[in-house]
């Protein structure tokens, strides 16, 4: 299915947010996720289903002042 992750289209097969992070090789402990502008809480990563054309934001901590 087609997912828009951080503004970029990706073709990925995954059921839920946990699987998505796994496929993207991301450590779930250092990210926060928005699905269609709504925050997905960490404890729900395994439960929230993903659908075709979902828009996701995956953010982390970077250097700043």
């Amino acid at each position, binding site marked *: 299915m087609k997912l828009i992750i951080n503004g970029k289209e990706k073709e990925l097969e995954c059921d839920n947010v946990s699987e998505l992070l796994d496929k993207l090789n*991301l450590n779930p402990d*250092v990210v926060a*996720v928005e699905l269609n502008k709504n925050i997905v*809480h960490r404890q729900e990563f395994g439960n929230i289903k993903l659908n075709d054309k979902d828009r996701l934001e*995956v953010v*982390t*901590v970077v*250097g700043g*002042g």
Partner: protein
Amino acid sequence: MDDKLKIGKFEFNSRLIIGTGKYADFGIMKKAHEASGAEVVTVAIRRINFDNPKENLLNFIDKNKMTILPNTAGCYTAEEAIRTARLAAEIGLPKWVKLEVIGDQKTLMPDNEETLRAAKVLVKEGFTVLPYTNDDIVACKKFEEAGAAAVMPLGAPIGSGQGILNPNNIRIVLENAKVPIIVDAGVGTASDATIAMELGADGVLLNTGVALAKDPVRMARAMKLAVESGRDAFLSGRIPKKMYASASSPIEGTLK
């Protein structure tokens, strides 16, 4: 000597808050952080880099010694800042925020109207809010009334290294403040940090002055000493300035 910096429910021995941006690499940053003695480090929240997901800043921050303070840098509206603060909390960072809403791209001057709007929402949501604002008593008072745990007036524009451009404004803010005042932005060298602390600021937040110094580790140490010196000088109560000399050695008994 108990002289802790208290911001909401947070307590620190160091009065220096240091950034994590603009360092040549994370290794140098970590050494600079150690040299600075800071117990709070600021970070930004951004989209993750898929090309290098394992090189994460969090691996270079000693969580036993440092409390991470997320910022909302790069936000131009209250909504963006609120969203960023919420995401930071979701990452698992402490529920506090250096609230920054910028109103002008070139000068990075704060948009106080938007910052205030965001502050009110985040305070209601239980965040400890530290707004970045102008060195203006009216703005600072409004944030205090909105429930900010500390207020952070700028010394000079972000990253400009111009020092404390208007010490009188900072002094006026300090005289009227009921919450800690942390001078944020503009600190270019050690004496700038000392001046802020001598004025009576409760702390100094800086990033570029250390990160872009030729020797960031040494500059971090200089900043640590500068903040401590300024604090001690402030607490000691300086002598008044006089027009004329006043001899330090006795006049009596001089050879004739």
